[in-house]
């Protein structure tokens, strides 16, 4: 089996696998019990779309799709970060007043803890 036909076979197998994972992720977006599940599923959808573009560019020979995949890979996680920030600052959730990696100041009446 030549390398090009092996590549074409791998791409042909990859397409239905990607389609299946796309369906499963879409189900998680619809079903997801919490908002965080849905946000992670949307991030996963971006990753699967990148995979689709890569496989499509291998099958058709359009190298242009690789550039779109790079751009999507760079920008795609921005939405996830923004969503994470939105979840953090949503009303009803108490924000920690100090960053977790900094030692908290000892309040009077609080037992002294080792940092």
């Amino acid at each position: 089996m030549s390398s090009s036909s092996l590549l074409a076979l791998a791409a042909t197998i990859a397409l239905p696998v990607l389609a299946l994972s796309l369906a499963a992720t879409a189900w998680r977006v619809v079903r997801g019990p919490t908002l965080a599940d849905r946000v992670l599923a949307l991030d996963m959808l971006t990753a699967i779309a990148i995979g689709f573009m890569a496989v499509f560019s291998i099958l058709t020979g359009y190298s242009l799709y690789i550039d779109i995949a790079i751009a999507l890979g760079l920008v795609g996680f921005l939405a996830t970060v923004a969503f994470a920030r939105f979840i953090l600052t949503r009303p009803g959730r108490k924000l920690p007043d100090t960053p977790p990696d900094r030692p908290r100041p000892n309040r009077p009446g609080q037992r002294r803890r080792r940092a």
Partner: protein
Amino acid sequence: MNTLIFRTIAPFLAALMLVFSVFVLLRGHNEPGGGFIGGLIAASAFAIQGLAQGVSAVRRALKMDPLGIAAIGLLLSALAGFLPFLGAMPFMTGLWIDLNLVADTVPVSSVMLFDIGVYLVVAGTVTAIALALEEKETD
């Protein structure tokens, strides 16, 4: 956002996105790409930096107001449009110069000047919007 991973990765990622945005801008003459999409990628780089390190750090790194960058871009684009008037040609005629560098000749055009202007306008405007939104959130 106080996660260590994000704060560490964000500067590298923003730098990578800025380089990629310039690549998209310069390639845009003959292939897909161009000033608009390049400006959007640059603006998302600044947005990521703003999410990771705070808006004031980005404003300090930019050294000028994002809308000032947009104004410079608008000036460049208008200049590229009016440049052909010097040679009594119609508005926005493409002018080409073959720049002789050490090893190669590089064709430089007023079209590219216009595209760089578009890049700066889009990057400045979208960065201004993103930074204003991020500032509002932290109040």
